C-alpha cells in the first residue's frame, strides 16, 4: 500500500474555524508563489499549532512550543532574512503563555506575520477560557463564568508597536487570505487576529453569533507620513474597542515608515542582507576561517 505523501490526515473537529484559516493560508501561499525555498510556517501548541502539517503544497513547517512560536520565528528570520516567516498560534498561546513575546515582537518590528487563531477557548485541553474571552462569559465547557477580563489583541498590538494590525473572520476565507497576503508582504511586524468559532467548546461565539456582528472597516488605516501616526493610531484604537455588539474586520493600522528590525541590524552590519548568518561560510576544508588576531592583539600585554 502506498502512503499519501501529499497531505497529512487533518484531525480538527468538523466545522472548526481553523479550516477557514488553513484554506486562507494555502491560497495566500499559492497566490504569493511561496514555497519552502522562500517561506516557513512556524506554529505554537494547540489545534492551531498543527496547521503547518496540514497545509497542502510544498512548504516547510516548524511546530514549536506553547507560547514560544514568535521566539523561534525571530531566530529564523534574523539568521535568514530571505525567508518569509509566518506564525500561526492560538489566542492562549499568543496572549496567555506567550504574551511577553507578543509585546516584544512589536518593539522589534521584524518582518514576521503572526496569524492568531482566536476562538476564546483552549480547545485541545477541553475548552478552558482563553485570554480573549470576555469577563462573565460562560461557555458550555466552563464550570463557572469567566472571572478574568479579556485582552484586546488589536489594541495590545498597536500599543506594542505592531505596524500592521488586522482582524479577520475564519469562515471568510477570501478576506482571511487577503489579510494574510498583506501581512506576509508587509515590511515589519504584522498581526492578523482571526476570529473563529470553536464548534466543540464555545457554544456562545458561534458562526451565527459572529455573522450577526461583523462588518468591514472603511477607514484608511495607513500612516502615509509620520505626522499622521497619532491620528491613525487613535482611530485604530477606537475601532479596536468597538466590541461585542458590532465587530469590525479589516486592517486597523498600517505603518511602513517605522524601520524594520532587519533595517536596524543593517545599520550595525552593512552587508547583513547580502551575507546573513545562514549563508556565511565559517570553515574551509574543516579549518576555522574567522580571524581573531586583532581581537587578541587588543588584549595582548607583551
Amino acid at each position, binding site marked *: 500500500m502506498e502512503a499519501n505523501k501529499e497531505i497529512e490526515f487533518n484531525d480538527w473537529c468538523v466545522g472548526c474555524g481553523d479550516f477557514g484559516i488553513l484554506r486562507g493560508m494555502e491560497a495566500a501561499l499559492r497566490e504569493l508563489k511561496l514555497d519552502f525555498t522562500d517561506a516557513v510556517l512556524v506554529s505554537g501548541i494547540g489545534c492551531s499549532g498543527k496547521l503547518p502539517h496540514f497545509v497542502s503544497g510544498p512548504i516547510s513547517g516548524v511546530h514549536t512550543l506553547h507560547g514560544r512560536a514568535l521566539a523561534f520565528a525571530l531566530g529564523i528570520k534574523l539568521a535568514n532574512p530571505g525567508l518569509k516567516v509566518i506564525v500561526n498560534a492560538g489566542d492562549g498561546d499568543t496572549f496567555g503563555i506567550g504574551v511577553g513575546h507578543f509585546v516584544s515582537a512589536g518593539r522589534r518590528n521584524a518582518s514576521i506575520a503572526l496569524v492568531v487563531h482566536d476562538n476564546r477557548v483552549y480547545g485541545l485541553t477541553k475548552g478552558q477560557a482563553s485570554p480573549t474571552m470576555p469577563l462573565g462569559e460562560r461557555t458550555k465547557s466552563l464550570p463557572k463564568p469567566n472571572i478574568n477580563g479579556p485582552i484586546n489583541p488589536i489594541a495590545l498590538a498597536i500599543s506594542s508597536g505592531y505596524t500592521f494590525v488586522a482582524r479577520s473572520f475564519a469562515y471568510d476565507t477570501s478576506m482571511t487570505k487577503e489579510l494574510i497576503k498583506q501581512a506576509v508582504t508587509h515590511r515589519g511586524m504584522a498581526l492578523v487576529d482571526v476570529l473563529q468559532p470553536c464548534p466543540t467548546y464555545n457554544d456562545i461565539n458561534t458562526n451565527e453569533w459572529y455573522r450577526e456582528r461583523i462588518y468591514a472597516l472603511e477607514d484608511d488605516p495607513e500612516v502615509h507620513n509620520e505626522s499622521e501616526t497619532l491620528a491613525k493610531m487613535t482611530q485604530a484604537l477606537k475601532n479596536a474597542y468597538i466590541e461585542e455588539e458590532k465587530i469590525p474586520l479589516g486592517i486597523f493600522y498600517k505603518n511602513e515608515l517605522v524601520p524594520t528590525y532587519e533595517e536596524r541590524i543593517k545599520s550595525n552590519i552593512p552587508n547583513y542582507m547580502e*551575507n546573513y548568518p545562514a549563508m556565511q561560510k565559517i570553515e574551509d576544508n574543516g579549518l576555522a576561517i574567522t580571524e581573531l588576531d586583532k581581537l587578541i592583539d587588543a588584549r595582548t600585554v607583551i
Partner: protein
Amino acid sequence: MRVRWLIGGAQGTGVDTAANVFGAAVARAGYYLFGSREYFSNIKGRHSYFNVVISDKVQFSIDSKVDILATFDAETIFQHFDDVTGYLIYDKAQEQTGIDKIRSLEFGIAKRQAAILEKAGLGITVADVIKYLSDKGVKAVPINYGPLMKDIINQLKIDPFVAERARNMICIGASFSLLCSNLDHLSGAIEQIFAGKQKFLELNKLAATAGTNAVTNAYSLKDIKASGRRAQLDGNTISALGKLYGGLRFQSYYPITPASDESTYIETNQLVAVKSEGEKQGVIVVQTEDELAAINSAVGASLTGARSATATSGPGFSLMNEGISWAGMNEVPVLVTYYMRGSPATGLPTRSGQSDLKLALNAGHGEFARIVIASGEHAEIFNDAITAMNLAELCQTPAVHIIEKTLANSYSIMDRESFFTDARIERGKIVYPEDPENYKRFEITPDGVSPRAFLGHAQMYYTGDEHDERGHIAEDPFNRTAMYEKRIKKLKQAENYLTEKQKANIIGTGSTVLLTWGSPKGAIIDAMELLKDDGIDIEMVQVRVFSPYPSELLKKTLAGKKQIVAVENNRNAQGAEIMTEQTGIMPTNYILKWNGRPMARDELADAIKDVVRNNTKMVVLNGGK
C-alpha cells in the same frame, strides 16, 4: 616562585581597571599572573577585590593567604587583615576608623574579624589592625592618600570627582614599587591601557608616580625575558573568542550575571574578519525579552544553518529547560554556555559554585543525546567552546558548556599559543537535497544521525511531538521506538570524536586520585607542585566531558587506587555522583567547598595532606572573603 597580592575597594571605585593596569605591568616584567575577582551583586559601594598571584610560571589558582594587601579604604583592611603575611598598604587617614563604623560590612563578618583583634587584646580600629599585624611580622606601609590626591588635583586643575577615580592608582604604584624596581613597566602599562585618553593617561601616571614614590622596593622582582606574546584575558572573553572562531553567527541572551559580558563582547565585535573573504561577516547578537526567547530564538536560528548559541547562568538556564527539550526532540544543534554561580534561586549571584551540574545533565524533560562539557582552566575554554559546537552539529543535539563564575571573572596572563590554536570545524552530516520535496529530516540511519538540510533548502517539518521521518506528528509505537532510540544512540558520534585528553585530564601519578571537574582543577595543579615538597604524590583526574561520560577511561584509570578523593565546589559532590552512576565506582574521601568562593591552593594542599595522612573522610573548605 609565587607572589600573592590582593587589592580591594568599594565597587565602582575602579578596582577592575587598577588590577588590569597592575596585570599589564607585571606581564611587561615577564611574569605570569592569575587574578580572581570577587564582588557583590551591587553597582556601587560594596566591597570588591582582586586576589592576584604572580609567578614566573603559568598559575591557575589563588591562595587564601596573600603577601601584599593593597588598600585605600578601611573595609578592605578589616575584611582581609588576617590573610596578609607580608605588607599592608593603607590610608594613614583611616587609622582611627573602627570596624563598627563600616556599615557595608555584614555584621557577621565584622563580628568575626573584630573577635580576632579582641582575642589579641586589641581594640577594633585600623590602628589596632596595624599593631596586630606588626606582632605577626607584617609591615605596614602608610600612604597619605588625601594630601597626594590634593596635589594631583591642584597640579592638573581637574574636577576632584574625576580625579577620585585615580586614587586606586596610587595604591597600584605603591604595590608595583614594592615588587619591582623597574617602574617603566608600570608607566608602559598605563600608557597602553589609557592610550588615546590623554586626560586619564596624565592623571593615572601622576597618581601611580605618587604611589611609587611613597614606598621602597622590597621584593626585587627581576625582569624575565618572555619568550612569546602574551595576552591578559578573562573567561567571558575567551569563551566569546572561542565561539567566534568556531563560527558562531547568532547569539541570543537575556542579561544575567556573570554571563552577559560574553554577549556584550560579541556584540561590540560583531563584525568579524574572515580569511580570504573581502568583507567582514556580521554576527547577530539579540538581547531577548527573557531566557525563553533566548534559547528558542537560538534554536530557530540554528534551523537555518547558522551556528547558534546563548549564554546564561542558573536562573536563566532553569527557564531554558523546555527549549532544550524541544531541541533534543528536533535534533537541533545549539550551544548554551552555562556560567555557573552560587545557587539555588538567585543564590550568590556574583559568586561561584558547581551545584548545577546535574541540572545541566538533565535539563529538559525526556531522554535524548546531549553534550555537556565543563572547562577547568582559561586555556580550555577556547577549545571547549569550539568542541561543544562541533559535537552539537555532529550529534545534531543541544550542547551545554559549563564555565564557572570564578573562571569567567578571573584573569590570566596567557601565552597566545596556549589557547589560540588552529581549530577544526566539524559540521556533521549536512545536505542540500537534490529532491527537496521528498527530503526526510529525520531519516532513520544506522548511526542515528540524519542528513541535515536547512530551512529554505528542502521541504521539512519539525514538531515537538513524536514524529515520523518527514517530521509529521506520529504516535505509532513502532515509529516511537525507532525514533527514540535514534535520538540516543547518535551520542556515539561524540564518543568517537573526542580524544582521551578531551574526555578527561589525567595529570601526575599516585595511589591517591583527586577526582574533579571545572575550576578546582587549577588549585589542584598548583597544590600538586606544593605537595611535592612534602613528598606527597597525587594524581588528578579532571572529567572534562560529562555527556557522553568517559566511563571506560575512568574505570581504567581508577582501577586499584587507594584513595579516590572527590574535589568539588558543591555540597553533594555531584561530579562524583555521576561517576558512581556511570561506572559503579565510589569515591573514598571528599574535599568540598560551597561557600561561593573558589578553591585556593593553600587550603586545598592542607586538606589533601589531611586526607592522605589521616584518611579523613570529608574536609569542608571555607576560605575566601
